[in-house]
């Protein structure tokens, strides 16, 4: 009995030691570093991404240090895969970072009241919402308060193979292009014998189907995020347009038409690619055999396209909020944004930087970045709720048969509706 007690003590002791080890570690990450004797305040800052992102973040930090010698920014890079899990668990574990990068998870964090309201900081320092693209600000506002500052923006765009347009005698797409123009071009370009398709980018990925549906005047859910709206006549029109591109016109490849490991677009087999802006940098690097250009997606009932974005927020648990705000302000301010702009990829949320030649002329006249800026300017914020993951899975479950098996659109939507509305109700209740 006595020895049992000893064991228990030993176990408890080691467990405590372990726990203490953990917490002292976290104290180090968020506490001020006084070890080297100076009074620098340390701001811990997590972000996701690879080497490219690391280079950008470090370049901005170098500039930041010049202006703020009293703040030490500790950058913590986390691989994109698993970023959300890592952030959640560390925040649940009580250790808070001072600045965190967020995207889709923003609503969940903001909804739980874990983020600092940035509106007072902005007012104090005279940072105006109007200087930023409105969709970027809207995406990171919660109950009318700005809870995060956008860092990088993008939107669904259209890349097109100029050579295929020339070959078929079709004029290049313009900002005034309609879906009918798009449809006609797709039919002309498609050439079964050569394995050439008019369009790629017809599928169940949210930005994919929403690009068509929203442009046709429909939406996944109503503006207030309470009701399913994909079964409205406008939405159905958009979905059917997509389905017809695959099955009736045979102008878009089926998933099984795309050989694994083969990129039809970069191998010149696609006339128009409706996809994200990341294709721009990859096209510059990889496409040597044909000429290509960027255009906004066509206009339907209105011009609109899904917004991609990410932002920086300050968790409520941070003990260095003022310093953290200085960091956020700098990164999303002119200096930070200019460094981003020089990459010539994603759009800087600060309008003045995005519309300057620093950004628009990065690639000389080779790429029409104005098309991307126009797209971001007219973009809509995806209807992200705290059930975003679940709803996307439902969309995958119910919409996939439409595009891969020619399933009846109305029937799929009828089955999908109660499932999505259940999620929407749960999201409302969770608020």
């Amino acid at each position, binding site marked *: 009995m006595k020895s049992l007690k000893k064991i228990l003590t030993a*176990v408890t002791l080691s467990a405590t030691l*372990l726990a203490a080890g953990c917490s002292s570690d976290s104290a180090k990450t968020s506490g001020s570093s006084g070890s080297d004797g100076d009074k620098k305040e340390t701001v811990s800052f997590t972000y996701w991404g690879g080497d490219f992102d690391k280079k950008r973040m470090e370049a901005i930090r170098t500039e930041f240090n010049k202006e703020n010698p009293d703040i030490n920014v500790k950058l913590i890079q986390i691989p994109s895969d698993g970023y959300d899990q890592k952030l959640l668990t560390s925040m649940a574990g009580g250790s808070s970072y001072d600045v965190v990068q967020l995207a889709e998870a923003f609503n969940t964090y903001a909804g739980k009241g874990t983020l600092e309201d940035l509106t007072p900081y902005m007012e104090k320092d005279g940072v105006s919402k109007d200087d930023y693209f409105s969709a970027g600000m809207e995406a990171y506002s919660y109950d009318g308060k700005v809870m995060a500052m956008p860092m990088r923006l993008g939107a669904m765009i259209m890349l097109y193979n100029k050579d295929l347009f020339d070959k078929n005698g079709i004029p290049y797409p313009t900002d005034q292009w309609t879906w009918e123009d798009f449809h006609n071009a797709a039919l002309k370009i498609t050439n079964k014998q050569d394995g050439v398709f008019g369009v790629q980018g017809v599928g169940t990925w949210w930005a994919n189907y929403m690009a068509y549906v929203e442009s046709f005047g429909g939406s996944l859910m109503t503006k207030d995020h309470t009701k399913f709206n994909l079964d409205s006549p406008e939405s159905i029109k958009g979905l059917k347009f997509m389905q017809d591109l695959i099955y009736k016109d045979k102008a878009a490849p089926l998933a099984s038409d795309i050989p694994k490991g083969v990129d039809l677009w970069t191998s010149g087999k696609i006339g128009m690619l409706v996809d994200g802006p990341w294709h721009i940098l990859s096209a510059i690097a990889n496409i040597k055999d044909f000429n290509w250009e960027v255009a906004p997606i066509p206009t339907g009932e209105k011009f609109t396209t899904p917004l991609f974005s990410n932002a920086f927020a300050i968790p409520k648990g941070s003990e260095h909020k003022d310093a953290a705000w200085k960091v956020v302000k700098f990164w999303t301010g002119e200096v930070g944004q200019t460094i981003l702009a020089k990459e010539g990829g994603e759009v800087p949320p600060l309008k003045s930087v995005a519309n300057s030649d620093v950004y628009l002329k990065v690639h000389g006249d080779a790429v029409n970045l104005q098309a991307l800026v126009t797209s971001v300017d007219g973009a809509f914020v995806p209807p992200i709720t705290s059930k975003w993951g679940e709803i996307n899975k439902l969309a995958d479950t119910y919409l996939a*048969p439409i595009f891969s098996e020619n399933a009846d659109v109305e029937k799929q939507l009828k089955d999908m509706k109660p*499932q999505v509305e259940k999620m929407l109700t749960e999201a409302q209740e969770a608020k």
Partner: protein
Amino acid sequence: MVAKTKQNFSSISKHEKRNFWIYISPWIIGFLAFTAIPFFSSLGLSFMQWDIITPPKWVGFDNYKELMDDKIYFWNALRNTIFYALVGVPLSVTLGLLLSILLSKEIKGINVFRIIFYLPAVFGGVAVLMLWSYLLYPGTGNGDAGLINAVLGWFGIEGPGWSQSEFWAKPAVILVGLWGVGGSMMIWLPALAGVPKELHEAAEIDGASRWRKFWSVTFPLITPAIFFQVTMGIIGSFQIFMEPKIMPGNQKAWTDSLMVNLFDNAFTFYKMGYASAIAWVLFIMIMVLTVINLVVSKRWVYYESN
């Protein structure tokens, strides 16, 4: 003897006792931290709602009720999982045994073959599954991307759509699992070697055919190994995760297993309580099946000791 050991133990010096606990502590702490505590926490969590950020909330049996009502994911995943068990386990046990019988022949260079067939058990994981999904890619109109269907094509067979087809998506998952069937020779070979040669010789003298020898001599003597493989196979197929996760069907619903469903809920939707409930339902199912296995085994498994 037993009493003596006991006495010896209590007479061990205090110093030695302390050392004993120090030496064994990594395993005890490891067991508590990584097995026992999570095990009981998950039981508790299965009655709660927990999204990791906000504190857990007690909801009673709600998670289990929701599970029973979840026809599109849970029941579907359960059906798929049962399919993997019903089709996959007999196939892998039979093939594993057949292969091992071939590999148990004492012929020249047999070790080379043993190594070759054991290798898949050494190389495993995500990378191999990615390769498989390339191999199983259905041929397309203007090019055969998938090697397997291309080879089938040489013989005039039009390969199925594998992951792209509702009918073949699950068999594809099982097929990929069968690739590693050679790993089971670790159990089969010693079991086959354990069948006394005299018995075979005696049967031969009595004029038994090969087939007869297998069913009347070998089979009864290796039933413990078969029992072990079937039990582990069922447990393994109920926990199948990597294959359907890495090479899902064109529609995930075709291939999703209970573990995939659990993973999605826990790490994509952050419904830890709900995911824990799935884990416990899975645990209970495996437990019940294993007990049934044990009970039924008394009728057909032969142990030399009884």
